[in-house]
């Protein structure tokens, strides 16, 4: 306390001699605000260093030639032009793959999350907890574990469980190398990602549904609402709109992060005949395997813009009902 009053007296003494703006600056750093910055500093520092700066760096590097050794040199839009016109796999396979995968897994996982949460919100708490845990648990295997789980399920020899089921049902004559087969890799990636897509967003919707005011429903039925479909669209979804938005962002991010699974499943980058190749894998291919960091950075920027576009588009849809 003593020291504090001394400091305050000191500040006042100096302050009176200085101009008004200086006094303001000193007050700005005075104890109340100082703790504000002490509390914020660790998060903000790490947030900027490892999230904001890399995004900016990707943006800047995307306009340069950079091989990772020499200092990057400016080369304008060449990387973007190269990706769009000369990189024969990007437009032909990688962009279509990424969009196909995201259009199915994104909305698919999202709708599934909503429907499951909606059903779960109408059963008793004990059963709900157990079922929600089972449905949520695949998302905990995100990353390497999910690939291992399904590698074992889809194992290419006759001891593989799915191969053996299909053989027994006579749907196959001989075991298939599912994960090395370009025709099957993408459908399997979609299945696996949908399986793991009931994550945080699913929990958010479920929590939202459980907290909708019941009187809303009662009032709507008195006002002449007829069926459950009307109930979902006129009462339920508007009531949990914010959770729906949060969940949408989570499922967009989850979808684009899950894209890397093709490489993990097939065990090679590029995947067989590029069948499961996504922008994410293409970035790694350029940046790490070919040391074309400028091109890789341009791909990163394209990917971030696609994600931003998806999220903006979605928030427009949800806001339209306002």
């Amino acid at each position, binding site marked *: 306390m003593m020291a504090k009053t001394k400091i305050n007296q000191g500040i006042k003494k100096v302050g009176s001699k200085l101009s008004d703006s200086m006094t303001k600056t000193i007050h700005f750093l005075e104890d109340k605000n100082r703790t*504000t910055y002490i509390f914020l500093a660790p998060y903000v520092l790490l947030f900027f*260093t490892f999230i904001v700066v890399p995004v900016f760096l*990707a943006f800047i590097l995307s306009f340069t030639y950079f091989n990772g050794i020499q200092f990057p040199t400016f080369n304008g839009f060449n990387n973007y032009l190269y990706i769009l016109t000369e990189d024969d796999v990007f437009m032909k396979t990688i962009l279509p793959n990424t969009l196909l995968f995201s259009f199915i897994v994104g909305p698919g996982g999202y709708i599934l999350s909503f429907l499951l949460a909606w059903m779960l919100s109408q059963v008793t708490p004990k059963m709900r907890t157990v079922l929600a845990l089972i449905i949520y648990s695949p998302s905990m*295997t995100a990353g390497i574990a999910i690939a291992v789980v399904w590698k074992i399920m889809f194992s290419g020899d006759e001891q593989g469980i799915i191969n053996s089921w299909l053989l027994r049902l006579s749907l196959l004559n001989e075991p298939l190398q599912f994960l090395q087969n370009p025709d099957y890799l993408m459908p399997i990636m979609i299945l696996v990602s949908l399986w793991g897509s009931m994550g945080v967003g699913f929990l958010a919707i479920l929590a939202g549904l459980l907290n909708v005011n019941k009187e809303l429903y009662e009032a709507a039925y008195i006002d002449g609402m007829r069926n459950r479909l009307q109930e979902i669209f006129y009462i339920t979804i508007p009531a949990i709109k914010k959770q729906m938005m*949060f969940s949408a962002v989570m499922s967009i991010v989850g979808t684009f*992060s899950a894209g890397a699974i093709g490489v993990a499943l097939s065990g090679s980058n590029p995947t067989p005949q590029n069948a499961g190749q996504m922008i994410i894998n293409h*970035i790694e291919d350029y940046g790490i395997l070919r040391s074309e960091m400028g091109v890789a950075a341009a791909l990163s920027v394209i990917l971030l813009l696609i994600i931003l576009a998806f999220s903006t588009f979605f928030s427009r849809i949800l806001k339209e009902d306002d």
Partner: protein
Amino acid sequence: MIGVNFNPQHYHKSQNKLYAFLFPFAIFMALPIVYIFSTAFKPIDELFAFPPRFLVQQPTINNFRDLFVFIGYGLPVMKFIINSLIVTLFVVFASVLFSSMAGYILSKKNFKGKKFLFEVNKLALMFVPIAVTIPRFLVITEIGIVNTMAAHVLPMIAIPVGLFLVKQFIDQIPNELIEAAKVDGAGDFYIYIKIIVPLTMPALATVAILSFQATWNNTETSTLFVSDELKQTFAFYMSTLTNASNSVAAAGIGAAATLIMFLPNLIIFIIMQSRVMSTMTHSGLK
């Protein structure tokens, strides 16, 4: 009345048609995980059996023993598990601490750039870390932490979703409570420790789970930032183990490793699930 049966406390036969869908669906969802459990405990002859059985007949812990004596890079697996534990512990602790500190300020204080910071953080909810691994690598090289344990820890601490959830949760704490404490002479540190942290426990548990999952399952930091084998993590070791071979014998060891990856996630979630749910109530995004 047709609807109005949300969050029922008792069983009613109208719930049967929901169960008719939910039970088969949950079984389908659980199948792969049950199969991994079963495979992890299969002895070698059951792994090679044709047709393969779904459930293990004579469970054994041989796969786990093989996993632990399996010498990857001449190092015992335990080393990687300990590395993962250390890294995860640091990240979880730091992300909970830092996001709650920042969340308190962001929710209850006025300062220059508050709105900006919140908006940038909201934008960063969409952030996909693997999209910018290369610039991240450059940053990590620049600050000189390549090949150190810090390269596993520091990039993982700031979790935009975590800060967002904590901030939303702290918004629910009435300002009067904090004002009253201030009148009694409490400073920010006191308010943070005695009011914010205890009342924000559910959100902090959620951040802990999110950062645990992100870090414990993470392979990228080892792939890109840490080539020193002594400092790599279990998740990374597991990815090399299963990439190396696709054979049946590897399936047993792979399944055992998957269980070691999966079980801590599951247990922590079960312990904290009610807290997570109460946090998610406030997850709304405008």
